[in-house]
């Protein structure tokens, strides 16, 4: 179940771990902003951002697996946005034309293969890659009018602009998702709280409450996942199968998961609020800090390098 709680603090001792939480919060923010001001289809800048991200990841000493986990949730979204660009973007030169001749047989074969593939998806390792291969083969296969009358004939025109923009969009989202894990993987919720609080201070006294809320939320994510797992197991032992069944059954199952989850979360929140109050926490009041944040040379270097990259992008855009 730990694999669900992606982006949760990973304990090890690296330069990035030791860095001031304020540096990490600021640089994450700047990095993301930077990612969105890269001029369209500029792969040089995208490459620089990717390089910066790879260097950071290597410095964290956190297993690469931890960063890649979050991609799993967006693979189909990425595929969809790529296909969308390829199909509908007609900028640039014509790259290739695919002439589809649909007959009952070739469409039928494609459908059967797809259905089989999805039914077996849990038993196939690297399913996504196989799915991509089958998709490409299928698109090619539909060009041949196998047996019988051609029911429909049309052209798909692929332009260079579509492929390039598709690749650009995908790499931007990939970099965004992977790099967003850096902050939470390398910063303890308490440190994150201290960092956020310090950064938000100029915006008012009450902002420390927001910082506390964020760090408490982060601290409770793994606990709630554990709780979900427990409920799932309890219900599985009573014969509830979350993967099978009709839509109506499924909705019932999801409700039977959500209701206890809500009740438990509220109970937890109430208990925690009591515990915090009993220990003298008054929202928005001044507190002393056990951990001293210190901004050192490595922070300066890291922050300056990201500011430098962004400055270059901005200058490039302006001229």
């Amino acid at each position, binding site marked *: 179940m730990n694999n669900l709680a992606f982006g949760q603090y990973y304990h090890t001792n690296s330069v990035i771990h030791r860095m001031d939480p304020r540096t990490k919060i600021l640089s994450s923010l700047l990095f993301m902003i930077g990612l969105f001001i890269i001029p369209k289809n500029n792969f040089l800048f995208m490459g620089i951002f990717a390089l910066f991200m790879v260097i950071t990841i290597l410095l964290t000493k956190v297993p690469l697996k931890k960063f890649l986990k979050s991609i799993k949730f967006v693979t189909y979204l990425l595929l969809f946005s790529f296909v969308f660009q390829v199909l509908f973007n007609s900028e640039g030169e014509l790259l290739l034309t695919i002439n589809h001749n649909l007959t009952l047989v070739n469409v039928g074969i494609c459908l059967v293969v797809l259905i089989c593939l999805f039914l077996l998806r849990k038993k196939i390792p690297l399913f996504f890659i196989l799915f991509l291969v089958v998709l490409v083969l299928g698109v090619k296969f539909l060009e041949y009018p196998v047996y019988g009358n051609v029911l429909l004939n049309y052209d798909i025109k692929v332009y260079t602009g579509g492929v390039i923009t598709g690749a650009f969009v995908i790499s931007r989202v990939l970099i965004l998702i992977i790099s967003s894990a850096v902050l939470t993987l390398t910063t303890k919720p308490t440190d994150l709280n201290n960092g956020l609080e310090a950064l938000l201070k100029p915006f008012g006294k009450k902002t420390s409450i927001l910082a506390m809320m964020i760090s408490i939320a982060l601290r409770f994510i793994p606990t709630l996942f554990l709780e979900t797992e427990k409920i799932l197991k309890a219900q599985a032992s009573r014969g509830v199968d979350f993967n099978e069944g009709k839509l109506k059954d499924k909705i019932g199952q999801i409700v039977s998961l959500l209701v206890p989850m809500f009740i438990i979360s509220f109970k937890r929140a109430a208990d925690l609020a009591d515990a915090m109050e009993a*220990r003298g926490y008054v929202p928005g009041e001044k*507190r002393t800090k056990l951990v001293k944040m210190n901004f050192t040379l490595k922070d300066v270097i890291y922050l300056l390098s990201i500011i430098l990259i962004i400055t270059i992008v901005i200058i490039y855009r302006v001229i």
Partner: protein
Amino acid sequence: MKIEFRNVTFYYKKSEVVLDNLSFTIEDGTMTAIIGHNGSGKSTIAKLIIGLLEPVSGEIYLNDELLTIDNLDEMRAKMGIIFQNPDNQFVGSTVKDDIAFGLENRLIEREEMIRRIEKYSRLVNMEEYLEKNPENLSGGQKQRVAIAGVLAMESDLIIFDESTSMLDPKGTKEINKTIKSLKNMNNGKTIISITHELEEALYADRILVLNGGKIVLDGSPSDVLPKKDILEASGLKVIDGLSLIEDLKKIDFESKDVILEAIWESIFTM
């Protein structure tokens, strides 16, 4: 800390009175066990003392001073509570940070914090875990961290609200041992131990049995525990060893108390 309830009535819903015109006094420096079945209002008493709830009617005096909104914060600084669910009471992402949480709220200086964290983590035998994430500790260890967090505030009153009820037998033993050693330290701290297990009340100076919003029994363990019928009527599970204690009570010889103590000890460490 001396605690006095004067005619305290409390309910969440008017139709279900939880505490019914309750009056009792807990003397400074003693250990009192409050026992009662599920839903008998034990946690409610704890929350009233710590000021998380306000009586519907009646007054609560702490050290002979009326507890009000105005002195709540100041009073709270002298009290600490350990709750039932170990997962719902830690805030910090390391044991050290968590013990520090209360100290940070009380504006304790950093050097003093470090000193106290060291001292009290050692007291509960958690000094090796200071850098660990509380998430990954056993239930008993989590509760010990919570105890260290309360002790670090150097408060006069410590309330344990069913702090063992969610633990396995090993964790329960660890916590009971810690509570007992706290009592034996004789450092003038007032301890209130809330439980629905009679075993855990055995080593208190005094036991209050709660039923139907009232105190139905009040006295030392050797007075209270033999009153099986009242205990059973209050929905409490009477333990086997107690019948032996009852038999022993009939015999009148000098070392009776020593033997009683020994039997309680053996029941407790079983």
